[in-house]
């Protein structure tokens, strides 16, 4: 069973969001990292980039394949997790902690109500 923390919001494409004031932290879920298997590379957006919800904003690569990561909420990138350049495996070992991807200053905090809560996401990934 994959871990789905109760205090986060989720997208159907397996990203998570932690909203604190107007700053959202984004990563991929435990379920996603298990499906992808060991990550060997993570490509992150540039700081300052404005991203709309649903837009492709990062790429994760496992041994076998490259997969897109979609932005769950609109905003402007304020910070990226530079540590992932050297240690992409942090996404596998700590997807909701040290394996975070980037932070956004969100455009409209109300957008978050369109995302799934933990119980809805748990139901989605079975």
């Amino acid at each position, binding site marked *: 069973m994959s871990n789905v923390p109760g205090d986060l919001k989720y997208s159907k494409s397996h990203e998570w969001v932690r909203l604190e004031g107007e700053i959202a932290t984004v990563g991929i879920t435990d379920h996603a990292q298990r499906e992808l*298997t*060991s990550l*060997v*590379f993570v490509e992150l957006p540039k700081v300052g980039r404005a991203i709309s919800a649903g837009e492709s904003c990062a790429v994760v*690569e496992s*041994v*076998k394949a*490259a997969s897109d990561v979609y932005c769950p909420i609109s905003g402007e990138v304020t910070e990226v997790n530079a540590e992932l350049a*050297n240690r992409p495996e942090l996404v596998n070992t700590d997807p909701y902690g040290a394996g975070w991807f980037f932070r956004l200053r969100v455009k409209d905090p109300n957008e978050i109500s369109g995302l799934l809560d933990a119980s809805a996401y748990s139901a989605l990934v079975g």
Partner: protein
Amino acid sequence: MLKHTPLYERHVRLSAQLVDFGGWEMPLRYRGIIDEHLAVRRAAGLFDISHMGELIVKGPGAESFLNRVLTNNVAKLAEGQGQYTLMCNPEGWVIDDLYVYRLKGNEYLLVVNAVRVEADTEWLVQQLAEQPDLGAVWVENASEVFGAVALQGPAVAAFADEVVTGKSVAGTDVPKVTALQKNRVGQFMWSGTAIHVARTGYTGEDGFEIIAPAPLIGGIWDRALEVGKSFGLEPAGLGARDTLRTEMCYPLYGHELDESTTPIEAGLQRFVALDKGEFVGRARLAEQAVQGVSKKLVAFRLSDKGPPPRPGYALFAPGEPDQIGQVTSGTYSPSLGLGIGMGYVTPKHAVAGARLEIDVRGRRLESVIVPKPIYRKQVDPKMIS
């Protein structure tokens, strides 16, 4: 409807992630590609290779016939010996790459790619009809009859004799399987039935391929896992098989080889016996051997950490605007911790040590052409001191 090997239920029980590989539902990975890869390099891995094809060619004309349709020299094979070889069309393009074993007298076993079984069988039957002067030859597609497993890794020699016990009954005459030399094959008894054991593989490590009637393969798989467990043996999937072979620069049909590529372009000239007499494709291959080729296969690795190269990515030379080639196989190398790959480039750029740029999603990634294989086993200093 995907085909299943005799080991399918075992893969499901092991919670393998399954993928479609040329119409076969095969395990991509069990524990994880990187872990399985490193297990094979450091200890041992067990692969299901039952999807591969087995063709039997036999009869008084078998040797002459095979020497007409294969590039390597079959006449050099003693009983119980095998060789890597290729099958080409008259243009010199590759129909398949395969292993041919001389089982006994004029009976040969061809181990071919899963995706090429039908194409190979059709080609052989057609060639047979066109060359009736060679003596009686029978070609049989026995792929449905056999299952197969590959036992690979430095630890395998320590326990293989406990997996398949006893002395050979045909082929190479040996008292036990670990007495087989590289590329040798012998028949051994398994619960009253003769099975084939060959000392070969597709990983660059020591190991065996065991080819047996399909109903027996499950028992062989179980026995290997049971006996090998304390030696670090674990099941390994197609993902690790691909990263292992890419590190060794072994070609994969559909990537480095296809019906628009010749063995000379692929750097496989040592498996083309131009001196053995006439064979299908010889004229074109002899011409290329003398006059050169228009593309050459090279191996490369990234200069730094970065996204792994993938098949289809464009290759460039630094400072030159035009594309010089394309990636055919690319992956992350678990042994080196870097992206690696192979690809065809224009011959003047095919120089070991030359820099290469790979286009990854519009960004240029720096890499360097390296001699093959990309990965070489380190000699442990403790072993020689």
